[in-house]
């Protein structure tokens, strides 16, 4: 251990305990001191769990290390991990994050039998023909005719929307909701946007202006940060 400096500082906050862990020592030293700290400070009240927020600073934990740490904290005391915060992420995670936050512009016709998949938002300059399919983990904007299938928020983002210059789709899918075209022939709509209506719990199509009011954060970067 480095002199007298404490590796782990425990602070009590309104949200529970906050564990600040030094990010310069080795993981083994960290575990050792954590074990000592946990053994030394017994929480007697056995009736309720205390929430713990872990602050790792500039330390990156592998999944296995994280499991070891969590296991030690929860097994020694009546504590519950509320959050683990680290100031660093891997390049891979950062790239994925960036991808999720990007708007991908694609210009082509998605024809019958073709599937266009993107991470993040999709801006398609072209048509989606009947039998064609476009998917995105974020929103889908089609500058053209949407006549096939569009699946927005593919990984479960129910706030995602699908907008098109002309919309007469076979199916609209958002997160795990699906709506299909009626069985009779319809004319389609111009400049409208499909989204999940929270009250009716289904996909509805509305004018763009109305959807902008319901999804005010649709274009802001903060939304992307949160979703990322």
């Amino acid at each position, binding site marked *: 251990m480095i002199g007298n400096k404490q590796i782990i500082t425990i602070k009590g906050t309104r949200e529970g305990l906050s564990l600040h862990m030094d990010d310069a020592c080795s993981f083994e030293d960290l575990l050792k001191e954590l074990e000592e700290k946990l053994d030394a400070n017994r929480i007697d009240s056995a009736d309720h769990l205390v929430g713990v927020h872990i602050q790792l600073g500039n330390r990156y934990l592998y999944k296995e290390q994280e499991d070891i740490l969590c296991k030690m904290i929860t097994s020694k005391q009546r504590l519950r991990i509320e959050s683990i915060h680290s100031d660093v992420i891997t390049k891979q995670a950062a790239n994925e994050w960036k991808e999720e936050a990007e708007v991908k512009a694609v210009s082509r*016709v998605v*024809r*019958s*039998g073709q599937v266009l998949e993107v991470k993040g938002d999709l801006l398609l300059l072209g*048509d989606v*023909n*009947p*039998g*064609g399919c476009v998917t995105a983990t974020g929103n889908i904007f089609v500058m053209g005719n949407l*006549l096939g299938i569009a699946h927005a928020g593919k990984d479960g983002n129910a706030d995602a929307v699908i907008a098109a210059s002309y919309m007469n789709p076979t199916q609209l899918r958002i997160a795990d909701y699906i709506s299909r075209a009626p069985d009779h022939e319809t004319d389609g709509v111009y400049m409208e946007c499909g989204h999940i209506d929270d009250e009716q719990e289904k996909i509805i199509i509305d004018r763009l202006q109305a959807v902008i009011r319901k999804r005010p954060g649709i274009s802001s970067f903060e939304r992307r940060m949160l979703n990322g």
Partner: protein
Amino acid sequence: MGEAIVITSGKGGVGKTTTSANLGTALALMEKKVCLIDTDIGLRNLDVVMGLENRIIYDIIDVIVGRCALKQALIKDKRFDHLYLLPAAQTSDKTDLTPDGMEKIVAELKPEFDYIIIDCPAGIEQGYKNAVAGADKAIVVTTPEKPSVRDADRIIGLLEQEDIEPPKLIVNRIRNHMVQEGDMLEVDEIVQVLSIDLLGIVADDDEVIKASNHGEPVAFHPNTKASIAYRNIARRILGESVPLMSFESDKGMFSRLKKLFSKSK
């Protein structure tokens, strides 16, 4: 150096073989040296439409496996000296035909002919891949029906991945009275969805069926609408700009009045 054009559609029964036979005939009428290739192994019928069935001795598989030379398998048309047919095999193993083999045959024919028209089988499997392998250009045939347009769209998507020019479209078997009553897709609508250049439109004509049964492509006689349509398409292939045929039938004043009233309803 000739040009190889594949006639394809995805869906069966839309008129690939009829189109191949008639475009071949129409191009031959314009003094072009043309070779038709039937690649529908096991279901050959381009020879029947052309009325050349009784002349077949060798076929395309025989050429590929080396049982004969390419020249021996070519059948000269009975009407033109510069129109030839390379027939498909009826009984041989169809796995013998490969994209490589096809490319070789087309490459061998190109110096001899102005146009090589390849009749593609229905579907998007091996037969399609073989037919497309040697082609420089593609013509997609569709009828004004949804399933047919859907398959045409699929095939255009596949053709875009090939190393050939963007395909051109022929809308075949248009029944004008049905289009007018809204029971059939309109040509404009089809072109908009498929977003490729329109090469021509052909009306549904009983004469085409008659001609197939007689083994004489309809384009050979100049007196039918379908014949003029195919000849126009051939002229467009040669680079002429020919306006699209009007389907307005010559029913006269009464029907026009009727149409006017039905619209204002």
